[in-house]
């Protein structure tokens, strides 16, 4: 089948039904502004990264882990991946390690031999980065503690917050001694009633990190000028504009920012330390070779 090369094609992971609403909305919005656009959905980020390199789409809406997967796969092929844009809310996130209010755990060292609840094993915010924080502060989580995974929708890289919610519920139920969640969910789980105010205490907070970005890889066959037009249109989106505000609300941002990659450094250190993507990358590079 001959591929349609007249449109810029975006790849996104269907972590929730709203993803269709979001990208259908963006599709209309881009087309009304003379950017021929389409999108494809993937069930998991690994398949999406592979799809980018197979030329199935031109721009990936990537999780931080998928960004590093793309960056490293590109390097193995002597290509270069670039992060071209991200949400304002993708910048400077932190994760927190929570304990019960009356817990005897007051320091990271106190977590030795304790049960630490994390999210899905591939969640940067609920698993990988908090584990790095523990490791870099003297507690090897895999050796010195019992890690309890809450694997909701593996392959979605923690986009679905179900794993974090399950971890917090387990902490409240007393089946684990600590739970790792994104900073926004520390607030969110109290507001939605999952946690009573004051029932949990923040034991530690990770260093800031960045979340999703739009990723491209050099050598793609995107229609000429379409990537530049794509970012130009994104950066023009104004939250005051009622035509685009509902889409921005669904995506959870007030403004698009140019992509930056420095704040993926903690996650890069973590995946090196825990060899998180090593088997996947090895399989890909062997296939390519």
């Amino acid at each position: 089948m001959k591929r349609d090369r007249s449109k810029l094609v975006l790849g996104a992971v269907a972590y929730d039904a709203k993803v269709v609403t979001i990208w259908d909305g963006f599709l209309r919005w881009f087309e009304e502004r003379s950017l021929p656009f389409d999108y494809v959905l993937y069930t998991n980020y690994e398949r999406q990264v592979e799809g980018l390199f197979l030329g199935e789409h031109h721009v990936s809406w990537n999780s931080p882990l998928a960004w590093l997967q793309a960056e490293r796969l590109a390097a193995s092929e002597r290509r270069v991946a670039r992060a071209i844009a991200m949400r304002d809310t993708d910048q400077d996130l932190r994760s927190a390690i929570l304990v019960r209010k009356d817990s005897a755990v007051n320091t990271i060292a106190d977590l030795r031999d304790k049960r630490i609840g994390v999210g899905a094993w591939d969640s940067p915010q609920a698993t990988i980065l908090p584990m790095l924080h523990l490791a870099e502060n003297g507690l090897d989580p895999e050796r010195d503690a019992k890690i309890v995974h809450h694997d909701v929708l593996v392959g979605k890289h923690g986009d679905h917050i179900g794993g974090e919610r399950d971890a917090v519920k387990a902490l409240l139920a007393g089946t684990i001694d600590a739970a790792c969640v994104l900073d926004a969910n520390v607030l969110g789980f109290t507001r939605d009633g999952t946690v009573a105010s004051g029932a949990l205490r923040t034991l530690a907070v990770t260093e800031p990190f960045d979340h999703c970005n739009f990723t491209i890889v050099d050598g793609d066959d995107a229609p000429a000028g379409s990537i530049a037009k794509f970012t130009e249109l994104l950066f023009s989106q104004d939250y005051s504009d009622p035509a685009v505000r509902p889409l921005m609300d669904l995506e959870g941002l007030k403004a698009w920012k140019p992509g930056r990659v420095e704040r993926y450094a903690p996650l890069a250190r973590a995946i090196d330390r825990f060899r998180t993507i090593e088997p996947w990358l090895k399989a890909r590079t062997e296939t390519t070779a």
Partner: protein
Amino acid sequence: MVELGALGLEQGGHILLLRALREAGEGGRVCVSGTHPDLPLQLSVFAREGAHQIESPAPDERKEGAVCALVAGSSLNARQRGAVRAGSARADHRTLHSYADARWGLAARGALVEAGAPSWDFSLNDRDLVWADEAKKLYAQALASQWDPEEAIPWNAPIDHPPFVEDAIVQVMTYLVENENAALLVPARFLGRIHPHFREVVQLLAIQIADEARHVEVFTRRALLRRDALGLSTVGGQRSLQTLFEESDFVLSTLLLSVLGEGSFVDLLWFLHEHAPDPVTGAIAQLTARDESRHVAAGMAHVHAALEARPEDRSRAQRAIEQRHLALQHTSGLNAEVFDALVLLAAGGLSPAAIARGFDAVQRLQSRMREGRQRRLERLGFTADDASILAGLHTRNFM
């Protein structure tokens, strides 16, 4: 300075921050102090999600206890920008917009509606076809006149009339339930089409529908008080009600149902009250007649206002009555069982003299109904001649 004390943002502290930021305006700086252990983390989430800048406090601000300063972002009042008022909160015919905007949707009248709200397909959005100034007053009266069937009707009062009278009651109640089902469902179908901007009209219809629901209940309960089965429902009666059901024009439907149909029903219910063989039937007839009188008043107000606004619609109204008559001319009209039951109730006995008396009473009822219809049509501006003809064309089924 917003002093949060021990209050966290998960406990509502964000309300105080937003108030201060709104007061400061876009670009305005607000210092925050507080002792909640997670405050720095919470403030960074708050700033990120609201697109506010977060800054370190200046030395003098720190001295006063500030843990950080927030600079209000541009999205703070984004939802208010370009928003429109859904008309004016207090409204009568003079100040109401002639059309309710589809984008006002379900918003309260007078609310500030965010731009980009979805468009709602309320087909009855024209003030002249919907509105009557009296709606507010009639709604208040209806609210004040609600009654509880359990309390208001002496269900345990003695019933000692002969079986043929009870049979007549059961047949009449069967007929009333059928007609009240129409009186409930016809306005209910319009209710969902009326733009809620015309709030008082919606409220009035809603309470009328509740009235009818109660009527269906009490008529059914009376029918089953001494019997296990209800009476006959006829093709002619249902055909007549179906023509009411099929009228898709709100004003014409109100004319046919409320002005002509329910108007005739008021006379029928007072007739039942007068000839009620037992206190239960008497109380039911009296209470439902009062409710129906309000429905007639509401219908009159609606049609009057609509014909005032569009006098040219008077000929359409006339045609609607004529067409309904034509559609029904080959049907039997009033259920013969019902007619006979009314005669028996008025007769109170089976002697030829009593029957003659009953028959005469029902004929007088029919005249009263017709005169009432004529009077109401004249009040709506029809000439006496037209009103007389049109009053006579009304369905023999009464409703």
